[in-house]
């Protein structure tokens, strides 16, 4: 089984006529995803790879069931697009757009909570359930995605879109497939954190282990460690920690917007200590992950 999306999940792409979104549409369709419409204001009536384009989200939801939306509009229009999708009753929103001020992200997250909807991202590559569907740019072209992602029992969550594919590729090469891989985004505020998604993986009988990608900045790892202890999670977790060199370079800013070294709780050393104390195994190299997963599962 998978979490969040299956082969039956229907979704739309907001901003479908943009250059990157057109590619994403093609990739998702080729992978088998059910895209039931695209929305670009003023472009209604067109088609993108056979997907009809509408001016408003309501025009699609009035015609058919829409489970999710991928929001791929420029930063200045993202909040409006997300509000439109929430208002139309869409329950799963993947925001791929980057550079959205956190005030607006926080507003979207708060609105989503009121509407009982879930946001993945922003600044993420989306979700991929191997052999089922992909929602977003994760894995790239369908043929490339099929190389890196294989069906299996490992749930993957990553703050880095690119590293999601790298980790899944390594797992697949070792014969460990994935139930679902989620690129959650690297911004300081995101819709769904590791701890937010854990209950979904917990509830999925086919998920047997979790692999996550971590880096300096933010409190998401601390939150996960707390979750694991408090909820007595059944799932063994293997975490890969990148950016260890940053502990030696305070004040420098690299990579994601969220990786700003501010205080002690943000450092890789502190995160590793907290995760290990909670029983999460921390890998130093990507290639160590499959062996650690197997060990934790007694395989």
């Amino acid at each position, binding site marked *: 089984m998978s979490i969040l999306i299956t082969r039956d999940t229907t979704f739309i792409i907001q901003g479908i006529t943009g250059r990157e979104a057109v590619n994403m549409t093609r990739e998702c369709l080729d992978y088998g995803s059910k895209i039931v419409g695209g929305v670009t204001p003023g472009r209604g009536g067109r088609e993108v790879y056979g997907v009809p384009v509408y001016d408003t989200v309501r025009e699609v939801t009035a015609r058919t069931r829409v489970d999710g939306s991928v929001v791929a509009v420029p930063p200045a229009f993202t909040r409006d697009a997300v509000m439109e999708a929430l208002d139309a009753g869409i329950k799963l929103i993947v925001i791929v757009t980057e550079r959205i001020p956190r005030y607006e992200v926080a507003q979207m997250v708060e609105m989503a909570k009121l509407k009982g909807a879930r946001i993945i991202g922003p600044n993420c590559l989306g979700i991929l359930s191997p052999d089922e569907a992909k929602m977003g740019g994760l894995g790239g072209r369908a043929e490339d995605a099929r190389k890196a992602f294989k069906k299996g029992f490992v749930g993957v969550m990553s703050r880095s879109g690119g590293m999601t594919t790298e980790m899944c590729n390594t797992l697949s090469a070792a014969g460990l497939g994935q139930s679902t891989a989620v690129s959650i985004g690297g911004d300081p505020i995101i819709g769904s954190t590791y701890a937010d998604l854990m209950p979904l993986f917990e509830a999925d009988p086919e998920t047997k282990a979790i692999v996550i990608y971590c880096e300096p900045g933010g409190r998401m790892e601390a939150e996960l460690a707390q979750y694991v202890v408090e909820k007595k999670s059944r799932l063994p977790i293997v975490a890969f920690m990148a950016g260890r*060199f940053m502990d030696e370079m305070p004040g420098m800013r690299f990579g994601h917007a969220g990786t700003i070294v501010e205080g002690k709780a943000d450092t890789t050393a502190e995160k590793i200590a907290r995760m290990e104390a909670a029983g999460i195994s921390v890998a130093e190299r990507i290639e160590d992950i499959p062996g650690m997963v197997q060990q934790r599962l007694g395989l």
Partner: protein
Amino acid sequence: MRFYEFEAKQLFSKYGIPLPAGSRVAHSPEEAATIAEEIGGPVVLKAQVLTGGRMKAGGVLFADTPSEAAHAAEKILGLVIKGHVPRGVLVEARAPVEQEYYLGVTWDGFARLPVMVFSDMGGIDVEEVAEKHPEHIAKRHFSTIYPFSDYMAKELIASLGVSGTNLLRLTHIAAQLARAFRNHSLTLAEINPLARLKDGRFVCLDGHVDLEDDARESQRQILQELGIDPAEKRQARPPTEFEIRGAEIDASDPRGVAGNVVEFDGDLGLIIGAGGGSLTLFDAIRKHGGRPANYCEIGGNPSVAKTCALTKLILSKPGVKKIAVMMNVVSNTRVDLVARGVIKGVLECGYKPSEKIAIFRIPGSWESEGFKILKDYGVDYCDRTVSMYEAAGRAVAKMREG
């Protein structure tokens, strides 16, 4: 984007938050004397720098007369504090302080909401107060979609036992600070110390404001009103020539990113995938004992021209012997385009790609096309069966061979 103290105070002032009398920036000793004369009493003069530790560096001085103020301003304007030249001297009235408070609004990434923090032990590090005197700290989250209402600030302040006129005055200041935070997409709005003077008035003695970098565009108006150039970068240290050129290359072409260049003093030039991949690869190079000459992100499918220009920049840095081009398995970046750009850059610098490129490890989209180009030029490349860690090791080994 951090604001100078005088800019932070101007912003506060627009929200009706009281400042010490006079509060203006002087750029010369004469100007400082004039402001001091207008104030007509003891003044404090403060260096306007975007770094801490100015008190220790002699950047905060007191004066009783205009001529003393001129003298102090001259001293301050001649300072360099941790590499920062003061952007003027803030001159303000010095008034007797009865008590110092702390008031701040910032983000709680955990709760994904803004949080207001109040303490009746201001003037010192709020983290220190939180640790040693938690009973002197009060916090309250507030919504980003419901309107901010004054009672929220009132409850927060009253929770530490403040009452009477003090409560009313502090409530007004806190509520206005929260509004400034919301209206301008700030990531930090802080008044510390917020002082109660002997006559009962409250004034903001020092303030910190950070504006979200991604909100500069939407905050153009207020930046303009405060006299801040929206394009001005305010970093912990001034960017080097090399880093500026990296940013220029990135700005020259909208396709992909080729920016975020940071210089180090090693001998291996890095062109590595943006975000998580670059953190992972930088760690791997160091773990193998390699000495990076730089940290340089590339990603989001950059054009051949952009990659070429970036390669030339990296190779132009003195001390760079070879470059390593590495990324995680890529989805939307085309391997062949990156390969083409890197080889073009190496050739245009007059080097042989087979000698200058220590390793090329970018698997993924359009990889077979990319690998063919690399093979034609005799470049050492690898596919996804070679891990990022292993590829970094191969690059470091190449450096040892010379």
